């Protein structure tokens, strides 16, 4: 047990950085990411006898962390029961746009991608997405995962996946149109 403690302490020094950045990119929330990393080391400590040395400690710890992230994602998904209101996505009862006017945001001469303030606003809006949408969006764009991998990892169907992306992007569009100030 003493030996396990020494080894885990070494791993904390060696792998906290890499695990935290992974957790952070998947969750986009620092406090949550830190908790998940901490839980990862606690689980690693408890299950240390299962570590056979067939894989590197980093691979083993990453696998534990991934399970923690997925568990968190699934329990968050279970808690989320409120149905989606069309209004929140920008549509009326019949699924028509509530606002048919073109927001000035989209009609600027300078490309939005060249405007740091647009990217900042977009990051802010991404952070405000419900946590399970955020994780899927992050897996897609930050980790550049293929949709097939994401569906497997989060145990969702392809159609759930693109519906989720659809809702997330509508919410981002609304968020940007409401919050972004054109310079």
């Amino acid at each position, binding site marked *: 047990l003493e030996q396990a403690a020494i080894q885990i302490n070494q791993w904390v020094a060696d792998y906290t950085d890499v695990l*935290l950045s992974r957790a952070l990119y998947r969750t986009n929330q620092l406090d949550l990411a830190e908790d998940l990393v901490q839980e990862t080391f606690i689980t690693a400590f408890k299950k240390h006898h299962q570590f056979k040395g067939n894989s590197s400690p980093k691979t083993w710890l990453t696998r534990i962390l991934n399970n923690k992230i997925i568990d968190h994602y699934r329990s968050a998904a279970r808690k989320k029961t409120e149905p989606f209101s069309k209004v929140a996505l920008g549509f009326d009862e019949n699924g028509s746009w509530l606002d048919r006017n073109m927001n000035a945001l*989209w009609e600027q001469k300078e490309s939005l991608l060249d405007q740091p303030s647009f990217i900042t606003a977009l*990051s802010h809006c991404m952070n405000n997405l419900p946590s399970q949408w955020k994780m899927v969006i992050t897996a897609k764009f930050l980790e550049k995962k293929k949709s097939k991998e994401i569906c497997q990892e989060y145990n969702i169907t392809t159609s759930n996946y693109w519906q989720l992306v659809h809702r997330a992007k509508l919410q981002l569009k609304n968020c940007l149109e409401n919050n972004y100030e054109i310079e």
Partner: protein
Amino acid sequence: MTSDRKIQLSCQKATALIEKKREVNLSFLERVKLLIHVKMCNVCKAYIKQSDMLDKGMQVSSNLKNTKSINTAELQKKIIQKLNSENNL
């Protein structure tokens, strides 16, 4: 009311198909419905470009995040303390 057989799409359905098209191939009927809708609806037509811009923007924003580093010394200390308390139980 909104049967799948109906040729006319709502804007909500049309934008869903626009996103679906990025992931999977649309059926022939879906393609026709979407084409007809977008011909008539400027807001959905504009959404195609906006959707593309959102994807590119999320890519740029994600690339920026990848280069950001965080100081984990505090967290390491916290974890060690937590592990020590677990160890003593």
